[in-house]
């Protein structure tokens, strides 16, 4: 009697576990769907407006051209995507095609054997991209194909600048401060910054470091993880000076970077502030944040980060970075074909025409429609050296510590020395 009860329970437990397996859909391991097609999953962060539609179309075109292939597209909000990717790396359940930002992050992924070596498989495309793949090269092997490389600079609203009586885009910090004052006098909030997400605030310090430190110092710091050079403290001092002029939007410490109309990008797109320091993605983001899908439209202007007096860095050096498509180690071969297709002349052309970024395929550069983006492209191509975003290049641990501390300076809770100390402490852990 007791035995039968036990048996009944075991049966119930078994039924439950079977139920569990029955409910679990096909796992990604097999990479085939019910029709026997090869399935590849693709995560991207163009989750708004025309960019999203374009990528859906690209996936459909690829399916049409390749019999027996299904592309599963997942458009994610950027911050959500990074969270999910992080989790995906840990579990090994990765999307077949995902975004890599290069630098220390990529090196970690390569070391863990997560990312596929594309050096031979995509040799043709790599040759076409030329020097652009440098940031995604680890020990002379190329692990991702960059589809958009840009530099960070000030996006501004031409109409508001005019309204405040600003004649020309600032080229030095003194001129920038002057412009800020004029905007304030005209009752316009000068600059929005998404300090709630930290990295937009951190870009300011990166740029000051780029202006204060010579190229040699920066490049050796990336390798040695040593931040004792005095110029790093000077960078923080420049930042403190800027913060002291109170140029930022109300509530900037909690403003998100680009989600919603009250984000830093949203404020710029809806004429609430006059400028924002952001990368080449800004026009695309702004379009998604306005009802007419136009962003600032005709009023979009761009100028590079101003020169800092007495700094050892080259004023023409730019902070930048880009996004590249990487293929997971265990992805089917067709995923590599898809990434190559994403970098083909026609796809990159469409990408450029929609102002989704700055194409890396040289044949597509001419199609960049937006005059502001064209300005940016000219600056990018003329730059003596492009410093990859520090948080990307140092990897998440050091980069995260750095960004957190920089955000504290924005809140008046830390100092120039504090940034260096926090960064150094995190870096010492890495050694």
């Amino acid at each position, binding site marked *: 009697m007791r035995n039968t009860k036990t048996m009944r329970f075991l049966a119930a437990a078994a039924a439950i576990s079977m139920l569990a397996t029955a409910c679990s859909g096909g796992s990604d391991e097999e990479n085939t769907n019910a029709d026997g097609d090869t399935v590849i999953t693709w995560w991207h962060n163009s989750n708004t407006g025309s960019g999203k539609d374009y990528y859906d179309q690209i996936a459909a075109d690829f399916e049409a051209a390749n019999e027996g292939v299904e592309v599963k597209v997942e458009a994610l909000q950027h911050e959500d995507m990074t969270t999910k990717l992080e989790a995906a790396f840990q579990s090994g359940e990765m999307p077949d095609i995902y975004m890599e930002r290069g630098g220390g992050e990529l090196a970690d992924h390569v070391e*863990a*054997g997560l990312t596929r070596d594309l050096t031979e498989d995509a040799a043709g495309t790599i040759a076409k991209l030329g020097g652009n793949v440098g940031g995604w090269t680890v020990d002379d092997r190329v692990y991702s194909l960059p589809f958009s490389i840009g530099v960070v600079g000030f996006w501004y609203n031409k109409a508001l600048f005019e309204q405040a009586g600003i004649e020309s885009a600032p080229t030095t910090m003194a001129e920038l401060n002057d412009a800020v004052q004029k905007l304030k006098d005209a009752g316009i909030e000068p600059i929005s910054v998404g300090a709630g997400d930290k990295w937009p605030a951190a870009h300011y310090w990166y740029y000051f470091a780029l202006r204060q430190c010579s190229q040699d110092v920066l490049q050796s710091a990336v390798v040695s993880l040593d931040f004792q050079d005095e110029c790093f403290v000077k960078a923080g001092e420049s930042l403190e000076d800027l913060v002291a002029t109170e140029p930022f939007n109300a509530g900037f410490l*909690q403003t998100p970077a680009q989600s919603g109309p009250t984000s830093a990008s949203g404020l710029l797109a809806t004429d*609430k502030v006059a400028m924002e320091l952001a990368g080449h993605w800004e026009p695309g983001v702004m379009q998604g944040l306005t009802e007419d899908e136009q962003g600032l439209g005709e009023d979009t202007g761009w100028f590079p980060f101003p020169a800092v007096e007495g700094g050892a860095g080259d004023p023409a050096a730019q902070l930048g970075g880009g996004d590249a498509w990487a293929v997971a180690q265990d992805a089917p071969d067709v995923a590599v074909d898809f990434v190559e297709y994403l970098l083909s002349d026609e796809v990159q052309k469409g990408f450029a025409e929609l102002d989704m970024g700055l194409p890396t395929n040289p044949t597509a550069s001419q199609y960049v429609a937006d005059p502001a983006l064209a300005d940016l492209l000219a600056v990018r191509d003329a730059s003596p050296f492009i410093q990859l975003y520090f948080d990307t290049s140092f990897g998440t641990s050091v980069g995260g510590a750095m960004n957190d501390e920089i955000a504290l300076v924005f809140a008046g809770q830390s100092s120039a020395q504090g940034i260096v100390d926090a960064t150094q402490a995190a870096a010492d852990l890495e050694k």
Partner: protein
Amino acid sequence: MADKTQASAVDAGLSATHGSQTPAAGGRTPSAAGSEPARRKAKPNYRQAIEAGIFIAPALALFAFFVVWPMIKAVQFSLYRWKGFGPLVDFVGLDNYIRVLQNDVFIGSLTHNLIIIVASIAIQLPLGLLIALLLNRKMWGRAALRTIVFVPYVLAEVIVGVIWFQMLQPNYGAIAVVLDAVGIQGPPQGFLGTVELALPTLMVVLTWKFLGFAIILFLAGLQGVPEELHEAAQIDGASWWQTQVKITIPLIGPTLRTWAFLSMVGSLQLFDMVWILTKGGPANATTTMVTFLINEGTKRSNYGIASAASVVLFIIALVFALVYQRFVLRRDNPDIEPQRKKVTR
């Protein structure tokens, strides 16, 4: 929690329903702590144990698999330096724990957790009790009121976060606009963007969201207080307020203590709402232990440190529970409710 003692706080006081003499809270004699309640006379036997095992097995299996196992994994991760992928090789012993405990941001987070615990109880206990007493009396529209009070508690944190975030925006937000209309100048950086105001603002939102839970529990406790007591008190000439203060509140003491415990645990584990409203900012003014560890994990890939922080959090919660149980719940059942056997049938 406590050794089970079957007799409940209310039992002692309830059989003597007539007379305004009620036992003060906790004033009953605890049935000898630790001794088996008198009502279970049956000897433990083999068959019962087997049956119990069978009955408990599924829950225990589920629990062991999805709660205990991840906990053990967390302990394991906490002993390594690990970026979240690849093999666990870099054993560092208790290093991560030292780092966590020496970390100013973590200490700040712990402080915020403690502030939230104290503030939650100090605000929600009187407020929730008052509203529960109000909803417990006969009045017009009581059913509707009861319903409305629970609304915030049912909403998802995400939804609450989205709504309040929009309302709290400086200059354009609904709250700023309303304040403006009555001539009050809101803080220039907004409620969430001002370092000094962020935590109090968060407390307001938390109170709005979780007061409903306190009220539900208190109402449940109040149902256990028999009408006859009130009548008796009134016959003795006590006012409504006197009746509440002298009789009702002491009688639901165990409920209040249980709620306080759940509230403490909830405050220690606070995450969703903070993450959506402030991400722990501005300038770490609203970090909690969980936002700290999520930040260390997902944003900085220091999974060893994040796991160490989660173990520390668990230990702190455990210490809290034990201390609370030792000094406060000692005389109650560690239960949601005082049970009583109905005297009347």
